[in-house]
């Protein structure tokens, strides 16, 4: 479904991603782990069009998307959940969700989506009229994820969902991600917290300093000695 | 300063100094006087603007220089030479009154520019409001003096010409002095990061105030010279938003980061203004301003470094290419 091929992304003269190649198949959950500054967020931003690749291509369902502007990529069914529980601070929870359904294919189903979301996230239903900026970190993260679901995406890009959240909340978030997986969404998740991320992964990549140094399924990751010590704390 | 630039400037200076000896045309002398005078004002403005302290309200200093000595002379017979000193001091005081709170409370960049814009407008409105003394929007004519030299009035226009040249040279000299002193280092550092500079012990506020006060004083000097030369002033021509922006534009056109930029920019604008005035005349009042406004818009969009700046950049690129290909 998603094919990232030999992509190079630069910030000015600094090469943030080098020859990165990633695949995500339908209904698959793929994770990219790596330390801070490895380029994980850059990868997601490059896929959804907020950054442009200098080399390489990105294809979504056989359509080339790396040349498209970000809003067009969103229309095609790729939703980005940015890091840090980034929501529109001065819009209400409800408005944040509503804007999630801005794209044409989602607008017709907006009411339905609202109902589903409010069922899944009762806290959001309670706080629907509250300013999103006044929510706690965990609530904002939930809102960000819920918002992405409002757009009825085919592929969800999750940027470090555990960042800055208390462990209990992180567990909640990953419970949720498991549910999304069960619903059949294709997910590309980038995370520093390799332990948590591997629990939901069908396939994983390890990114260090902009380069992919390892890839494999869960077992392969679990067994690799370097990864075990460096990332899994074992 | 490169050798070519220095030679060229030397030639231009020689030309300026010798011009009245070869051209007796009052008209030519008048035009060059205006070029020199406004170049001086533009240079004074760029003196602080190049460090990121951009004022869109220098008209207020210009106006103070124009009106204060003129009023003191008309009402009290006080020699405009002394009036000039008073005007300069007044401008300096205003610069401090405005600058200190702004710099202290970190009102910088475009917020600072907006404040100066407002101040210029206030200056203009005050002049109009005090119409009983200043003549309001109808303007003020400076009385004829019985003691010409002492009262900053000269029947021979060439005296103004050389005064304007002297003022411009003064402005350029001060620019150079600043460049060679630690003031420039301090201000460049401040321009890049105020926080970093102040943590290194640089007294940010004082340096900014220093260059602002110098700029204000020089600008007011230009106002005095203009008033005494033209002998008629009104709020439109020497104060307010219009003339403030005009001064900015002249400096930016030529390139406000280069010492000769304001001179080049002003000369071009003065000549163009005159050309348009002659060819289109008063048939279409306002057309020259429209053309300027549009030209400026285009300039800002396409050539943000100004003419001198862009040419310098091109030349430097040329050097690099040459060296690279060797």
């Amino acid at each position, binding site marked *: 479904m998603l094919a990232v091929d030999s992509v190079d992304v630069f910030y000015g003269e600094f090469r943030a991603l080098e020859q990165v190649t990633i695949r995500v198949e339908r209904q698959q959950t793929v994770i990219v782990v790596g330390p801070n500054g490895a380029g994980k967020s850059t990868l997601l931003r490059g896929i959804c069009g907020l950054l442009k690749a200098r080399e390489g291509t990105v294809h979504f369902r056989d359509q080339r998307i790396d040349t498209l502007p970000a809003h067009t990529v969103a229309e095609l069914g790729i939703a980005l959940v940015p890091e840090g529980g980034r929501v529109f601070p001065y819009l209400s929870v409800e408005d944040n969700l509503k804007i999630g359904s801005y794209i044409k294919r989602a*607008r017709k189903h907006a009411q339905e989506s609202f109902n589903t979301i409010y069922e899944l996230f009762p806290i959001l239903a309670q706080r629907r009229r509250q300013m999103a900026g006044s929510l706690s970190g965990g609530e904002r993260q939930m809102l960000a994820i819920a918002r992405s679901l409002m757009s009825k995406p085919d592929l969800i890009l999750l940027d470090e969902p555990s960042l800055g959240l208390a462990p209990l909340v992180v567990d909640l978030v990953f419970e949720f991600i498991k549910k999304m997986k069960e619903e059949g969404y294709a997910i590309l998740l980038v995370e520093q917290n390799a332990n948590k991320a591997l629990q939901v992964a069908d396939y994983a990549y390890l990114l260090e300093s902009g380069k992919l140094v390892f890839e494999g399924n869960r077992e392969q990751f679990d067994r690799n000695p370097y990864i075990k010590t460096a990332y899994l704390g074992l | 300063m490169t050798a070519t630039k220095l030679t060229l400037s030397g030639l231009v200076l020689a030309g300026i100094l010798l011009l009245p000896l070869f051209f007796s045309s009052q008209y030519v002398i008048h035009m060059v006087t205006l070029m020199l005078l406004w170049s001086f004002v533009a240079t004074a403005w760029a003196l602080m603007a190049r460090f990121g302290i951009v004022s869109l309200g220098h008209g207020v200093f210009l106006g103070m220089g124009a009106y204060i000595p003129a009023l003191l002379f008309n009402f009290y017979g006080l020699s405009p030479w002394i009036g000039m000193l008073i005007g300069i001091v007044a401008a300096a005081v205003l610069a401090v009154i405005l600058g200190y709170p702004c710099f202290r409370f970190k009102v910088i*960049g*475009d917020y600072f520019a907006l404040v100066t814009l407002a101040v210029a407008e*206030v200056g203009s*409105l005050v002049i109009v409001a005090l119409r009983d003394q200043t003549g309001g929007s109808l303007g003020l004519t400076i009385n004829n003096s019985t003691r010409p030299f002492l009262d900053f009035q000269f029947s021979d226009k060439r005296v103004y010409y050389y005064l304007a040249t002297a003022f411009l040279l003064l402005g350029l000299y001060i620019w150079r002095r600043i460049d060679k002193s630690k003031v420039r280092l301090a201000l460049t550092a401040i321009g890049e990061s105020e926080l970093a500079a102040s943590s290194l012990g640089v007294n940010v506020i004082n340096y900014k105030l220093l260059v602002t006060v110098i700029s204000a004083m020089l600008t007011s000097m230009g106002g005095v010279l203009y008033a005494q030369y033209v002998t008629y002033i009104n709020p439109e021509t020497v104060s307010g*938003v219009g003339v403030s922006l005009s001064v900015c534009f002249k400096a*930016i056109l030529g390139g406000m980061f280069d010492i000769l930029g304001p001179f080049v920019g002003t000369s071009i604008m003065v000549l163009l203004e005159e050309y348009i005035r002659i060819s289109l005349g008063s048939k279409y009042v306002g057309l020259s*301003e429209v053309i300027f406004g549009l030209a400026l818009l285009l300039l800002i969009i396409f050539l943000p470094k100004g003419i001198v700046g862009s040419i310098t950049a091109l030349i430097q690129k040329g050097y690099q290419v040459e060296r690279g290909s060797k």
Partner: protein
Amino acid sequence: MVEQITMAFINGILLGGVLALLAFGLNLIFGVVKIIHMAYGQFVMLGFYLIYSFHATMGVPLPAAMALGVLSMAILGIFTQLLLIRPLLKAPRLNQLLALASLIIVVENVAMMIWGADYRGIPLALPIIQVGEVFIRSSYLMAFVGAIVVLGLLYVFLNRTYLGLAIRAVAQDLEMAQGMGINPATVYYVTLAAGGALTGIVAAFFVPIYTVHPHFGSSFTIMAFVIVVLGGMGNLLGGFISAFIIGVATSITAVVYSTEVADILALVVFVLVMLIRPQGLLGVRA
């Protein structure tokens, strides 16, 4: 004197409504595009001149002339976005300020060239309403009611429609808005068109109240600025409240002293607010 001040107070409130529209437009543009439209008052002036030309010169009936004026200013807003703002989006702030400031000079002088320096107006004999000791001009009242209606519509638009929501989203976080599928160009053009249309609407309300001349724009640009800064730049609610504060303050000052002093007062307030509390007195976001 008391009656005069009471009337000044009432007129201040009535005009405050129209000033609120002006502040809204400026805040909307600034909030979305992050550039200050320095020539906003001059656009109002232009709108006025256009309405005048459509009606007095071309004989179009006044209501149609007003509608045409609003439409023309909306189109001008679109051109402003296309030709001026779009190339400047990535430029340093100073350049943006200067470019829009030169727009002031262009618009004022174009007006001078086309319509001359004389005062132009459309004479309308509108009734004066008397309430007790106080006389209220119906033109002021209509302007006030009209402004409130327009503001109400704008409120509904921004809060209940997808496009309005998109505009607010872009104002708060452009990147994230793009991620939601919002095309920034669409939002920019709509915002500038709306901002332009608002100047036309304000001009229409001003037609029965003022006569226009090429420097008419400056007082309104200044006032719009002061209001916007007082309420917090980009803050729609703040602008709304400040409009009435400034409307009343300048109105009363103009009656007690003179209009020049009122303008000077407005500017002094502006400078003081910038120095002491640049986020505006209200500092609250709407």
